[in-house]
């Protein structure tokens, strides 16, 4: 549905986005992930026809973002990084204004305002002036204006920025709901957010595409080693337990991370392709060391992200 080919953007001599190519399928929730200044916002501004690309092309629903910009704009909902709110207007009035500019037919304006008020939970502030709302409600009004015309594509630039944890959870839930029947592109530098909400992730750094895949696949592909935590009795001396663990085939490192009165926790690194939990349990128990806990640690998207971004730098 969205095709981006070799998209680049220069701000003067600074290259914000370079040679970006990717595809988005209908119904996908895609996340842009990257540190500040990675080119996420610039890419979104190009896709929403706000900034023209310096080179390359992109088509959305088969419409070129430069040549058929009006067609693209009609079908897209956009929440810029800074919520585009007229603080002097009331919530309902503002939504009706945007609906009118979005080209919603006159007889459907009130029903579409109702729909987006409902979806974003704005009923209680409908008649309030936007300037008097809390940041969380303002952000919701921003999202409400983006979905007012029931667009096929929703582009949200850092939708949860500046919100408190409760509001973040609400907004994420809202985005997940919206993503059920439309395509969503969102950007974030909060990793768990992308992990939770997005089906696919594009990692950007310094305007370049570093990786694109599902969060699970990224994790699998980029795993350098597997980490297993073991908590076992320390009776008989830790040296003994640590030696037993170190002697298991495939283990590349053992480190004691915590010690309690009668137990120690060890962090075990091993090759990524083998799960050692079974063997660890058998070895410890057969050596007569009581086993309290055994768990394998998932590599977080955070680790992958830092790994990718630092690799790029080197």
């Amino acid at each position, binding site marked *: 549905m969205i095709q981006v080919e070799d998209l680049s953007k220069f701000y003067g001599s600074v290259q914000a986005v370079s040679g970006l190519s990717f595809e988005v399928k209908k119904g996908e929730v895609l996340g842009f992930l990257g540190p500040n200044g990675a080119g996420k916002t610039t890419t979104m501004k190009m896709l929403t026809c706000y900034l*023209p690309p310096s080179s390359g092309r992109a088509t959305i629903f088969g419409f070129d973002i430069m040549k058929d910009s009006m067609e693209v*704009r009609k079908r897209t909902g956009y929440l*810029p990084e800074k919520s585009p709110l007229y603080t002097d207007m009331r919530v309902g009035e503002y939504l009706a204004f945007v609906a009118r500019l*979005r080209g919603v037919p006159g007889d459907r304006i009130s029903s579409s305002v109702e729909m987006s008020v409902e979806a974003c939970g704005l009923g209680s502030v409908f008649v309030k002036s936007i300037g008097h709302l809390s940041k969380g409600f303002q952000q919701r009004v921003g999202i409400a204006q983006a979905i007012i015309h029931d667009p096929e594509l929703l582009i949200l630039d850092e939708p949860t920025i500046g919100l408190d944890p409760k509001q973040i959870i609400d907004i994420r839930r809202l985005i997940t709901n919206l993503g059920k029947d439309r395509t969503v592109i969102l950007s974030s530098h909060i990793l768990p957010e992308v992990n939770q909400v997005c089906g696919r992730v594009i990692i950007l750094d310094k305007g370049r595409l570093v990786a694109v895949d599902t969060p699970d696949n990224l994790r699998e592909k980029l795993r350098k080693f597997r980490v297993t935590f073991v908590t076992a009795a320390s009776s008989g001396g830790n040296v003994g337990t640590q030696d037993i663990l170190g002697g298991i085939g495939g283990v590349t490192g053992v480190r004691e991370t915590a010690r309690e009165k009668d137990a120690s926790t060890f962090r075990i690194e091993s090759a990524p392709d083998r799960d050692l939990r079974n063997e660890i349990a058998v070895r410890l128990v057969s050596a007569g060391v009581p086993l309290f806990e055994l768990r394998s640690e998932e590599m977080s998207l955070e680790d992958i992200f830092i790994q990718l971004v630092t690799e790029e730098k080197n």
Partner: protein
Amino acid sequence: MRKFLAIYSRELRYYFRSITAYAVISIFLVLSGYFFFSIFRFYNVLSLQAIKNNDFSGNLNLVDGVMRPVMGNISVILLILLPLLTMRLIAEEKKQGTFELLLTLPVSDPAVVAGKYLSALTVYAVMLAATLLYPVLLMVFADPEIPPVLSGYLGLFLMGASFIAIGTFFSSLTSNQLIAGVSTFGVSLLFLIIGWAAPLAGPVMSAVLSELSFLVHFESFSKGVIDTKDITYYLFLTGFFIFLTLRSLESARWRS
């Protein structure tokens, strides 16, 4: 057209819901009322003397003695107040971040500019119409010539329309309202007084300078002469700055 109306009515609502319109209109009326009052008083004294002396009564009439000076003063008040009305038009959107929304909505730039320009023009029309009270007062107590008053008002309206176009343009250049307002004031003032340099310039330059001047073109309107040359001048100037505004919106996409 619907989209233009949506923007136009939003802008108008902004002016009249915030105190902007009321502040500008009431200050305008206080100042122009003061000028009308003092000029009229002065005219009163003159006419009393004329009755006593009986010699220069022929030169004395309400249009030349009251309405023309009042309208001349109004044009100077406009110079100061209209930039305050127009400076927010686009600069505020840039500051608030709504500019990005506006440019990514399926709305054409001309609809945006027309909506904004005409909303400011409407506020101006309202405040100018309120000053019609002065000629009406004259008509109640005396018998002024009506056509020169009407043509003078047409001239004032066209001059204000040009000021507003200049203001819209400068508002589109920056996100800082103060800079937009000050630039508008500076350029409008230059257009108002550029004719003063005419007597000192060479024959060709002198004609060019006086033809560029707001005051020179307003002069004939206030005398009761409606010349297509003068109307064309104001319309051209207005159109030119509206055109520049459209260019500026387009280039904002490329420059940012």
